[in-house]
């Protein structure tokens, strides 16, 4: 029985590794081509009207820089409408919005500041804005997501490649407080890797995109047709991505479009944010699990399969392997005093060759993990440094293990919510920090 569990666990982990390798291969193919492209910015054939929506709930610390960045975007000012939502704010957010936009409003820019008191969190704000917006496309920026000046230009440039099929285009987010501490450095690595490897590969191989919470545009008429965002969704971005794919449309990646986002600086804030994301992802798996078996667009099936494998199968395998490792180490540690104790998880005491082979296998997996991160870093000028290599090694044993704790906690929480009929969609806002 022990041997069977060991073999199943390890084979499952190898399956997850195979999936990671397919994605990495796609990313490498993408970047071998794109790394030679010198980015140019020719005038666009047309400049569709854009309604930029900024949902802000008690964002006094960060809103000013975001608003100023939005007002200086490299996009014709007459084609942009700015909708700033101070959503149930108890701080100075609305006043700061007014101050930061005063000159622009005096100059005739289309800026509206809405002090909202409704429910629904971010999805609620976006649904309200959907009724008010007049632009052909909606652009969404979180209050802490300061776009680079050409961010919107690149999103629209990508959109115009195929406006019939691309109903949404998303860019990437960079960590603006990456150098703050060990945690933010690890988050930066994770975000660079997920966006430069995961997002690029999935788009390049399958034309599948996932709308992030910020720095994306979405066709307004399409958003109205699908009924907007699902109120109360913990990860409204993933939720709407599935809805778009179910409609047979595409979410395109504009990898040059960048926004600078603030990440949690303390473990507590990080944990709360990731717990919400993980619970939201389990919700998405729950809502879409049936699509594995019904007639629906193949991209939805593939994406659902990916989520199910990652959040259920592979997570369970990693938890099992951690339990095996920790229990074996614990027994080894106390064995000098209790020599009668047998190591619980082995392939038989004499199978040293297999033990050594699996140890080598583990070391190689750690190296692949580090090289994957360094490939992502290499795609971004100035990020591929020796420090990042050591950080990748340290994060494997520390930061990466946090993901398991968060996943287990989220799975348990979702399960208990279901059993007790509890409303698990309580939205925990990520705390901001002064820049």
């Amino acid at each position, binding site marked *: 029985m022990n*041997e*069977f569990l060991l*073999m199943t666990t*390890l*084979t499952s982990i*190898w399956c997850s*590794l195979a999936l990671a*390798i397919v994605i*990495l291969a796609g990313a*490498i193919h993408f*970047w*071998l081509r794109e*790394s*030679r*492209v*010198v*980015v140019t*910015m020719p*005038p*666009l054939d047309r*400049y569709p009207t854009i309604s930029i929506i900024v949902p802000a709930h008690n964002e006094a610390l960060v809103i000013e820089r975001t608003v100023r960045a939005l007002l200086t975007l*490299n*996009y*014709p*000012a007459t084609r942009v409408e700015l909708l700033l939502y101070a959503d149930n704010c108890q701080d100075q957010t609305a006043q700061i919005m007014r101050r930061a936009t005063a000159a622009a409003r005096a100059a005739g820019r289309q800026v509206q500041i809405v002090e909202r008191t409704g429910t629904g969190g971010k999805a609620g704000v976006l649904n309200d804005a959907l009724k008010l917006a007049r632009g052909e496309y909606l652009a969404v920026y979180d209050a802490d997501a300061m776009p680079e000046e050409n961010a919107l*230009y690149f999103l629209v440039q990508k959109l115009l490649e195929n406006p019939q099929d691309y109903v949404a285009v998303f860019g990437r987010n960079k960590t603006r407080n990456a150098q703050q501490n060990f945690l933010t450095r690890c988050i930066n690595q994770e975000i660079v890797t997920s966006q430069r490897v995961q997002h690029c590969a999935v788009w390049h191989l399958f034309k599948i995109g996932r709308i992030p919470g910020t720095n994306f545009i979405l066709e307004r008429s399409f958003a109205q047709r699908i009924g907007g965002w699902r109120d109360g969704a913990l990860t409204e971005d993933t939720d709407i991505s599935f809805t778009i794919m179910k409609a047979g449309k595409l979410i395109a990646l504009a990898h040059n479009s960048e926004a600078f986002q603030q990440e949690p600086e303390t473990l507590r804030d990080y944990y709360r944010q990731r717990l919400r994301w993980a619970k939201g992802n389990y919700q998405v798996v729950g809502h879409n699990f049936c699509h594995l078996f019904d007639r629906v667009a193949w991209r939805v099936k593939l994406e659902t399969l990916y989520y199910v494998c990652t959040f259920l199968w592979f997570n369970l395998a990693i938890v099992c392997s951690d339990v095996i490792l920790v229990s074996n180490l614990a027994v080894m540690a106390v064995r000098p005093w209790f020599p009668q104790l047998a190591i619980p998880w082995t*392939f*038989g005491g004499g*199978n040293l*060759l*297999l033990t050594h*082979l*699996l140890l*080598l*296998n583990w070391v*190689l*997996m750690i*190296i*692949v993990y580090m*090289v*994957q991160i*360094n*490939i992502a870093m*290499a*795609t*971004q*000028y100035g990020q*591929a440094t020796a420090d990042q290599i050591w950080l990748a090694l340290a994060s494997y044993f520390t930061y990466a293990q946090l993901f398991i704790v968060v996943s287990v906690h989220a799975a348990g929480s979702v399960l208990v919510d279901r059993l007790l009929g509890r409303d698990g969609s309580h939205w925990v806002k990520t705390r901001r920090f002064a820049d």
Partner: protein
Amino acid sequence: MVKGFFLLAMVVTIGLAILTALLLVCQWVIYFRVEQTMVTRRHRARTPRRSANE
């Protein structure tokens, strides 16, 4: 069953070793291309850029 698993582990480990070497090569190629592209881009940036606002 353990013997079969041993063979699988052997194949996976050899595959990983080859993959690691390939990945390292790819990493260096991408790194140097990105550096080269940035140098070219900076060189071109000396000429005035047209803004979309114009």
